[in-house]
């Protein structure tokens, strides 16, 4: 996924991480260059474990992992180039937002920590609350303070774990614009999310992770198509389920119907064609539709499907 010719900013080669008998990340390989990449997966998929390994906070159990061409584990000098926004909410509550950003700037040995902190606070739109203790912040403000701390040294690689947690829609839009702008400057941004729409709005590339495995990777539109075109199952209630079932089975988008517990279940290959033509099919069969519901539209089932492919 990295740009041709340029060395990948992030590279994983058959990386696994396990805790005792539990495999959190299972044999994952990919490489990333500049741009925004979304790490998409349900809760517990292994996203945070992956980001923590990239941030040098966890040792890979197997495989090779490099960030900026160097191993991330036990390499503190790498933090000059990395910014991390962890998922955990804990921030030094007794510091103000400005003090927190300045602490990060000082620990990065920046020549003018005050100016860098002020710039970072302005970037995340936290100026109005900059001199209030973080302990008094809302979840969204706290999140922005964390991002200010991660941006203060203008890292070339930014790792964000569920960065939009707690942000209101206006703050999300601001943050999306900010991260897009940073990517346009040539930075590598990898953020995790379990919300498809967030990834859709921000990421050019996407890594789908499920149960520790890389389920899919590449251009978001391709992944989206895979998700949409996967087999779907609909539960239908109508005035005459038997007649509707006979009519539906003749449709090319439908590859199976069954009547179970008085409900009609239709298995569909083409989501778009089926939903567009269902009303017409029902009308032709002189059947009234009472209820049409997808039975497997949870993100979890989408991820499970992508892994099975």
């Amino acid at each position: 996924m990295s740009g041709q010719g340029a060395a990948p900013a992030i590279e994983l080669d058959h990386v696994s991480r396990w805790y005792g008998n539990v495999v959190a990340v299972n044999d994952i390989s990919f490489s990333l260059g500049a741009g925004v990449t979304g790490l998409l997966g349900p809760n517990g998929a292994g996203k945070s474990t992956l980001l923590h390994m990239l941030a040098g906070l966890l040792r890979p159990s197997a495989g090779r992992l490099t960030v900026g061409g160097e191993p991330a584990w036990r390499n503190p000098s790498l933090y000059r180039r990395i910014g991390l926004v962890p998922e955990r909410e804990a921030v030094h509550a007794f510091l103000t937002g400005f003090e927190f950003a300045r602490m990060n700037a000082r620990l990065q040995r920046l020549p003018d920590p005050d100016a860098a902190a002020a710039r970072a606070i302005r970037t995340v739109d936290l100026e109005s609350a900059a001199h209030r203790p973080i302990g008094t912040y809302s979840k969204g403000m706290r999140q922005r303070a964390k991002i200010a701390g991660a941006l203060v040294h203008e890292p070339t690689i930014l790792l964000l774990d569920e960065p939009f947690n707690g942000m209101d829609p206006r703050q999300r839009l601001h943050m999306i614009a900010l991260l897009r702008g940073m990517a346009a400057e040539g930075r590598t941004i990898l953020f995790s999310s379990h919300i498809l729409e967030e990834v859709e709005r921000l990421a050019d590339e996407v890594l789908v992770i499920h149960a520790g495995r890389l389920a899919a990777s590449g251009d978001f539109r391709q992944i989206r198509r895979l998700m949409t075109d996967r087999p779907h199952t609909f539960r239908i209630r109508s005035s005459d389920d038997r007649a509707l079932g006979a009519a539906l089975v003749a449709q090319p988008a439908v590859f199976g119907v069954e009547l179970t517990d008085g409900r009609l279940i239709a298995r569909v290959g083409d989501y778009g064609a089926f939903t567009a033509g269902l009303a017409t099919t029902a009308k032709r069969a002189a059947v009234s539709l009472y209820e049409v519901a997808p039975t497997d539209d949870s993100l979890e089932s989408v991820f499970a499907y992508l892994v099975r492919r």
Partner: protein
Amino acid sequence: MTIFITLVDVTLRGLVGRRRTVLLVLLAVLPIGLALLARLGGETPDAAAALDALVVRIVLPLIALVFGTAALGAEIEDGTAVYLLTKPIARLHIVVAKVVVAALLTAALVAPSALVTGLLMGGGDEGLAATLAVTPAVIIGSLLYAAAFVAISVITTRALVIGLVYVVIWEGILAGILVGTRIFSIREAVLGFAGVLAPDAWESGLEAAQAVALALVVVIGGIALGARRLAVHEVRGGD
């Protein structure tokens, strides 16, 4: 130097101003209150014995235990240590800053407690000598306990319990029964340092040279062990 000052500043602000600090101040004041009561009651207790029982055995290790395990251990526990660990700074600097702050805060409470308690106890020249000897000794003791407890807090999340077991069981009981265990007792080292300054008032199971050796081992070993463990400390993700 900016790094060190920043680490000290954030640690100091994280440790003071909380409810536990108030409780520790009350603990430090306790021997003073007891000494006052004794004097008001017309007693003139043995200053060295009272200081040993109250300050050296109880106040010093307990205050050092709370500050020592909280200075870094609490940050590891609540996740804020990540903001220090993801910086291009040597782990040794982090541990040294934590030990220095824990030692300073402990000494800031315990040394005045020892001095005022001793002066109130009286006891003439002998009492005064005992007091003036134990005050610098508890300052050194603050550093030793802080180094030990900060190191333990990097190794285990149960540092408070382990530290308490060390203070109560090892130093409090075993060192009294099995003389050989005193070589690993910080309390004995503190008494050894006090004994150097006032040999008639203070007795220790350790010679002065042994106390110095133990102090060096605890401070250098504790900091080195803490830094080494922090370098390989893993922060688990949420999933």
